[in-house]
């Protein structure tokens, strides 16, 4: 491109102004990228980064003691935004005796879907497959294992009360949750179904892993609405009050971030457009000279648009580069804060970088458009007589 040196030299004609303009593209772009990444991290998370997030739980509206039809789980699973669904039944009963020391949570569950919904759990010993394959096997929290001094292969006998049966379980795997106590025992609901046919068809709570925060908010309402007029109305909540607040806030945050982004883009646009307008106005005469030499209106138009594009691209590339480089230290600094979970999910999302690039190109083209059209359409003789 033989016109490139001409364009480039024009971009840097007024160095201070150019540097200031580029700076006023870089900084807002950084802000936009950060906000965009935050939204992306919340919104379209990488499953590996969002274990344990966006989980909601459905129970009977009246209370935990009232079961729901088991078919609800399948209905919920078919809703958009539900990644995995699993069923919990509170077994209750007793271990050894009724003392507080020997009390812990015991659930009859679907092993295969349990690990999908509770994807934040890690198996610390034994294996999930061993548990899947042994109908009388159990998955036990690490805290419980320590408390009772159990080992893989040990037998645990539970005497039922809600469900009048005694079950004998073999410990097949040990789990650990990251930020919560790991103190429950899980066993296969099929085992209970076999020994207690009346158990079939009921489920205590249904846990749903949602695609993202928006899906979690949406599904919570959707599920309750779906069953509102059935004999078994539901109440769906986020797993934790914290997440609940967070998830419901998400809609507002999104709106806020989107409007801020638009405002910032408009500000960049105004600044860049002002620079381009000034720069073109200072050169009315030069542009007339170029046209006298035989540069067509079209060529003048592309030269000026080229200038505004290069100006914006320099800012955009530096801005996006700084963002990519600065992300690591930023994440590191957020690691020990309450939002560390989200911080670790933030990365240079392609869609955020693409957005940055699109904004850059848009600013480049739009900021130069008016001056370019004006300069290319002004009569040459008028331009030549222009003083200033």
């Amino acid at each position, binding site marked *: 491109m033989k016109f490139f040196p001409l364009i480039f030299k024009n971009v840097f004609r007024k160095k201070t102004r150019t540097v200031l303009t580029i700076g006023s593209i870089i900084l807002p772009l950084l802000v936009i990228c950060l906000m965009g990444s935050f939204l992306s991290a919340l919104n379209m998370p990488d499953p590996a980064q969002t274990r344990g997030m966006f989980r909601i739980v459905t129970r009977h509206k009246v209370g935990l003691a009232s079961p729901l039809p088991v078919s609800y789980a399948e209905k919920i699973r078919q809703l958009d935004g539900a990644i995995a669904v699993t069923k919990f039944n509170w077994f209750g009963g007793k271990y050894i005796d009724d003392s507080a020391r020997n009390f812990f949570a015991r659930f009859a569950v679907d092993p295969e879907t349990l690990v999908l919904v509770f994807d934040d759990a890690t198996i610390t010993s034994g294996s999930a497959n061993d548990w899947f394959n042994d109908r009388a096997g159990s998955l036990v929290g690490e805290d419980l294992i320590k408390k009772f001094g159990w080992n893989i292969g040990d037998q645990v006998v539970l005497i039922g009360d809600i469900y009048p049966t005694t079950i004998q379980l073999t410990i097949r795997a040990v789990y650990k949750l990251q930020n919560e106590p790991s103190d429950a025992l899980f066993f296969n609901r099929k085992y209970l179904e076999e020994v207690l046919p009346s158990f079939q068809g009921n489920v205590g709570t249904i846990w749903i892993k949602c695609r993202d925060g928006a899906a979690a908010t949406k599904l919570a309402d959707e599920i309750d609405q779906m069953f509102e007029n059935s004999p078994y109305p539901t109440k769906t909540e986020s797993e934790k009050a914290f997440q609940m607040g967070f998830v419901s806030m998400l809609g507002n945050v999104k709106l806020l971030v989107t409007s801020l982004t638009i405002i910032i883009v408009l500000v960049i646009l105004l600044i860049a457009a002002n620079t381009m307008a000034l720069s073109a106005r200072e050169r009315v005469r030069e542009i007339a000279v170029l046209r006298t030499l035989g540069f067509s209106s079209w*060529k003048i138009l592309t030269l000026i648009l080229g200038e505004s594009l290069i100006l914006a691209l320099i800012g955009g590339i530096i801005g996006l580069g700084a963002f990519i480089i600065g992300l690591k230290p930023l994440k590191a600094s957020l690691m020990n804060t309450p939002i560390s979970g989200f911080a670790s999910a933030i990365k240079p999302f392609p869609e955020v970088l693409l957005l940055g690039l699109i904004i850059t190109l848009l600013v480049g083209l739009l900021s130069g458009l008016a001056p370019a059209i004006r300069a290319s359409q002004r009569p040459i003789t008028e331009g030549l007589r222009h003083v200033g």
Partner: protein
Amino acid sequence: MDNPLIRVGNLVKNYHRGSEELTVLSGLNFIVEDGEFVALMGPSGSGKTTLLNLIAGIDRPTSGYIFVGTDEISSMTDSQLADWRSRHIGFIFQTYNLIPVLTAFENVELPLLLTPLGRVERRKHVEIALYIVGLSDRMSHYPRQLSGGQEQRVAIARAIVTDPTLLVADEPTGDLDAKSAEEILILLERLNSEFKKTIVIVTHDPRAAARARRIVHLEKGVLKEDIKAEDRGSVRLADSTLAFADVKS
């Protein structure tokens, strides 16, 4: 010598100033032979610049025709005109009008960017043009690092680098001191005699006009006088000795 390069007929140019209509050129006829060096003179506001701009194809007549060679430029579209100018016109301005952010070399190269010439060929053309105007040693200087006379010579190099059919100059010595003006005029004269360039200059300066082979007077929109060089040979001789003395001192 009967080989007209420029043929202007019934040329009318009106300007609108608000509701008023100002007639600058009213039915002007004008012929310039190929290889001529014509000076356009006349009082301020008589329409010299207007006529020159029309001939150079950067302005459009209200009516009438303008032929340069076989091209009727008065009927071309804007983009045709732009292309035509790039191939046929070398324009020299009173205020040089070099691009300040470009070096002398790059300024002269500008018109060549519109041609299909490659980088190496462009360089050769620029070097020759700068050599002709005597500025081979100033190629990488920026306009602000040059004197007015040097700037105008760079501008002339820019005007001749594409080897145009016609050179037009609007008061090319108007901003220069006597000595620099003389150098520019000698250069133009050389371009005319040595390189056979057809030149039309607008000037107020009788000494500049004296360099031309022919002087045309414009007054109130019409051609008033047309003195052939043969009629004023003595003036020319006197002037050139004067110039010679000037250059020597």
